């Protein structure tokens, strides 16, 4: 068949193409990092927000919820939960605190994580910070 297209040419396309597009990816990453301060709400990252992120991670919240659309699809999106709950940290704290230990018969229920008041405040602050990240207009509406 096409003897004009040799294995050596295929190999060169592979190495050349991969290197070229990886370098392009690095360039775009560099530019992204330069632009991020305008988008990622980093000014709001306090020690409390950082603690909130740890609480988020160490209770594996992503195992049921999505955050900015990434995670599991078993429970509601939480990237905008702060606005969905009427811009209220108290509502978030109250919800997490009031989960019944043994669940709700026949229904999905969030576990009772027995978080301390400090951790509850921190997770609410973290979710507030997340809701203020510029996500190009996503999600389409407040239901997430």
């Amino acid at each position: 068949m096409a003897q004009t297209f040799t294995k050596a040419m295929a190999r060169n396309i592979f190495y050349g193409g991969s290197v070229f597009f990886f370098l392009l990816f690095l360039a775009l990453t560099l530019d992204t990092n330069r632009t991020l301060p305008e988008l990622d709400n980093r000014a709001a990252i306090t020690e409390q927000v950082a603690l909130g992120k740890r609480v988020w991670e160490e209770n594996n919240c992503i195992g049921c919820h999505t955050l900015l659309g990434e995670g599991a699809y078993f429970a509601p999106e939480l990237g905008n939960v702060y606005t969905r709950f009427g811009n209220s940290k108290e509502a978030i704290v109250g919800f997490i605190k009031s989960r019944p230990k043994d669940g709700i018969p026949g229904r999905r229920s969030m576990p009772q994580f027995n978080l301390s008041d400090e951790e509850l405040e921190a997770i609410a602050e973290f979710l507030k910070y997340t809701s203020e990240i510029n996500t190009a207009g996503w999600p389409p509406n407040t239901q997430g």
Partner: protein
Amino acid sequence: MQYKSQAVAKPYFIAAIGLFMAQILFGLVMGLQYVVGDFLFPEIPFNVARMVHTNLLIVWLLFGFMGAAYYLVPEEAERELQAPWLAIAMFWIFLIAGALTVLGYLLVPYAGLAEMTGNQYLPTMGREFLEQPTITKLGIVVVALAFLFNIGMTVLKGRKTVVSLVLLLGLLGLAVFFLFSFYNPENLVQDKYYWWWVVHLWVEGVWELILGSILAFVLIKTTGVDREVIEKWLYVIIAMTLITGIIGTGHHYYWIGTPEYWQWWGSIFSAMEPIPFFMMTVFAFNMVNRRRRNHPNKAAILWALGTAVMAFLGAGVWGFLHTLSPVNYYTHGTQITAAHGHLAFYGAYVMIVLAIISYAMPMLRGREAANSERSQVLEMWSFWLMTVSMVFITLFLTGAGILQVFLQRYSENPQPFMAVQEKIVLFYWLREIAGLVFLIGLICYVTSFFVGSRDAEVKIGSAATSPA
């Protein structure tokens, strides 16, 4: 089996199959929790079952990749493995570390596991697919380094073929990009940005190199087509994979606080990501059609053709379905994503591992080239049961996803998440039934190893070698 040290692949393959079985059982638990919300609550909450389900998948695929490498590299390099004892030692370390991690998930509350394993010193836990305690992640790095040393030295000291070089490159990339799992900044956007360097650059990047090289190996062995032809195809396929897939990472950067130009880069390049998968399908069928002999292991050829088709459908078609940013605006983080994830992982990675196991296992168990007729027939039944039921799982999840998108995001009066979930419960029930059929297929698969082991091998002479 041409080289004694290839035998180290056997425990890797057996462990892979065992963990695959466990993964499916937890998948069924989760599927049931979708419809009977309090099933096993609070003993095994959904997040724990999911963590076990996804982590087992990754671990058993890694076992499969490593077994594949230990089997095929000696044959490609035409020499014994550098250090077979090291491969066996790493097998036990990886298996025990994996088992301990899963037991930790199941027996200790996750926050307790984080505390026990010192997550505060280097917090890496609690991110999707990277839930493993930091110490497990360090263990993975050690195992990967020992593995790469073993495989790398064997390749370097022996015959260097395109198949083994591409495999080595893929495995090297796998190890390098895993290092980003240790980078977990407080800034959520940056955290997510580099999290994808593990997840996307694995499954839509370097893992495809591993997939391509294993497929090429199986096709060389079973079809007898000239290596030069197959290697040229392999280069072209993986070239297209990385040319489209690297910038294609951008399809994850639409809505996570990254600049909006990613909507263009991501849409255009990821729209081309099906191309290498389609080429893989054409490649596999072409090689089998041009075969110069009829290999007696028909099951292995079925898996090889199957993976090429299903990877194109799952990764290519179902990926394209929701990759354009105006579409993804509505589908992002819905059951559409779950549908795509299931078919893509099954088609591309589950099936290629089952293909190499199918090809190699008869030799590893002391046969000449293939299992008995009865065993192969049962294995092919398992192929169809698992593949067809996975297609239905995907279709039901797609149905659920379309309704979810409409009711929650697209219609005039968007409804809350949980209200929508209750309305689409029918699809979740059907998915669970399809999952049970998958389990039956998997049981057939495992049984096929024990059926007809005393019967004679299937024997087929050389195919008619007429040039037509």
